[in-house]
């Protein structure tokens, strides 16, 4: 398996997924996540938005899929589709779940918006046997150019956002995230880089090329060894 990022192959790692018609419904990183979730798994999608991933998981992967979302209108949209979603603040709600409740906990484009990313990661891996986390890569070359030449803090998610109104209060690069995982004793089982074109590829987590060329990354996380207390 290539650890270099740069020679994109079409398709991505996950196989057929939900079929081309349904791929339009979900973002590239969500499709990648959907492909990583085993069929029939118990999945919690933290910050599930309008439920696109949940819908996909429950209808095409036979998953027992649940969600948490803070935005009232989005929760209502999820419930209207018959999805199981709780309106609430992820950092508060997650505490209530018992250890090992889920096969997989998904935190899609949300870790940078929580107040305590480290505590959140710990909780994800307490209530789930695996965590799938996607981030926006602050190390993407365009962001570097914006910062180096423009002299402005870049916000790759939404160029219209400013430092004072972005939800992503903890911006990070792939390398930053991998460093935190390393420090916490979290094992990165898989790391995928997503390019601006939407092409995805599994990469070596410390890959400098991935940190430069990927707009997003998706990580599959587990504990390096079973933790004594958190497990």
């Amino acid at each position, binding site marked *: 398996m290539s650890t270099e990022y740069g020679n994109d192959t079409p398709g991505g790692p996950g196989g057929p997924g939900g079929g081309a018609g349904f791929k339009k419904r979900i973002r590239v990183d969500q499709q990648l996540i959907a492909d990583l979730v085993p069929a029939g798994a118990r999945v919690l999608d933290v910050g599930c938005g309008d439920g696109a991933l949940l819908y996909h998981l429950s209808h095409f992967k036979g998953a027992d899929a649940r969600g948490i979302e803070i935005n009232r209108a989005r929760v209502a949209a999820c419930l209207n*589709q*018959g999805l199981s979603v709780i309106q609430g603040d992820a950092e508060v709600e997650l505490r209530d779940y018992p250890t090992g409740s889920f096969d997989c906990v998904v935190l899609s484009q949300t870790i940078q918006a929580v107040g305590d990313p480290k505590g959140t990661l710990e909780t994800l891996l307490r209530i789930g046997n695996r965590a799938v986390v996607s981030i926006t890569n602050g190390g993407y070359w365009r962001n570097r150019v914006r910062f180096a030449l423009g002299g402005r803090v870049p916000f790759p998610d939404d160029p219209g956002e400013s430092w004072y109104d972005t939800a992503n209060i903890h911006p990070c690069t792939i390398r930053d995230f991998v460093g935190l995982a390393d420090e916490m004793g979290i094992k990165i089982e898989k790391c995928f880089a997503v390019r601006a074109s939407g092409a995805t590829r599994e990469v070596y987590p410390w890959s400098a090329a991935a940190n430069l060329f990927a707009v997003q990354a998706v990580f599959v996380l587990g504990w390096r060894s079973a933790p004594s207390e958190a497990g």
Partner: protein
Amino acid sequence: MGPRTGAAGADGMANDTGPQGTGGVTIDPHTLPGEFVTLAVEAPLDLDSGARLGPINVAYTTHGTLNADKSNAILICHALTGDQFVCGTHPITKRPGWWDTTVGPGKPLDPDRYFLICPNLLGGCMGTTGPSETNPATGKPWGLDFPVITIGDMVNVQKLLVDHLGIGQLFSVVGGSMGGMQVLDWAARFPERVFSVMPIATALRTSAQNIAHHEVGRQAVMADPDWCGGRYQEEGKRPHRGLAVARMGAHITYLSETALTRRFGRSLQARDRVTYGFEADFQVESYLRHQGITFVDRFDANSYLYITRAMDYFDMVEEHGGVATEIFAGTNVRFGVISFTSDWMFPTAENREIVKALNGVGANVSFVEIETDHGHDSFLMDVADYHRVIRGFLEGAAELRGEAGP
């Protein structure tokens, strides 16, 4: 004025005579439309108080058709002052039933799709056994000889009815406020008999504030000399003044300050200036008096005492050793919990306690707080977001159960 409730809503301003009204109309509930059945005939029901009660009459209505595999039955649990006339025209008030906004063809609880069962609860006064019915042992009205009942007792009677109808597993049990307490009790004690539940604007336990409001209501009833120590039926009287005051006080708790301000503000009732007296100068006074007057026409004072008491005693957490997560441990029931932003009787925080208890055992639960300014009564109203959520939840549950549905 915004959306209206069913029976609870005002249909206009009252006359100015104060809350005493006409003194109420004595109705014979057995002449009302709907179904009647006598249950607990062979073996009386063991009540939570230790007393035994039986046989028990249950008055109920059904809407829609039970399908061949009996998989489309939904039990609707009514609240404190509701009854079995959930939709259509109420036979006594001649106004829409208490949940006509939500129950009916094309509405979220649709009889064209579901078989809807709505019983009058134990202790009620619309034909189900309660304090105004005749005590078979004495041939006189029960009055205060009627045993004190609980939410659990009400649910046990509902279960007898569901057994009687031959339905193994209800597709859903739905109800708001005290109806939501029955819903939760169904899920906790008979999880194998329900596929999904929707507890709406409710709580795992009755708060001190709600017990306090209930006590004011009960004291108003008992302070009325026509209450006669609970034996008013034998004395040929009705404590309509006390019951009307109880209703007026309770009605305030169902609304919100925003709703009252929007609807009435400080507007005067059919006059240009205040009268410097104690007539209903303000529209809001007139409205409340009207609520009191119309209520006594359809409700029994002793039923009010018994049912509020049942609500006071409701505490699922205490029943499970003070550990909320024990209540639904191991449940396979699918839960849809709904609260309303302006509800101060069963605020979102109390509904969240239900969600927390369910998350603690990894139960399948959905929760949404609907934004309205109609207060607790929101659960009776035609709120588009709310109705979409009810529909979505039931359709999702039906899909999970593997039913195409009609």
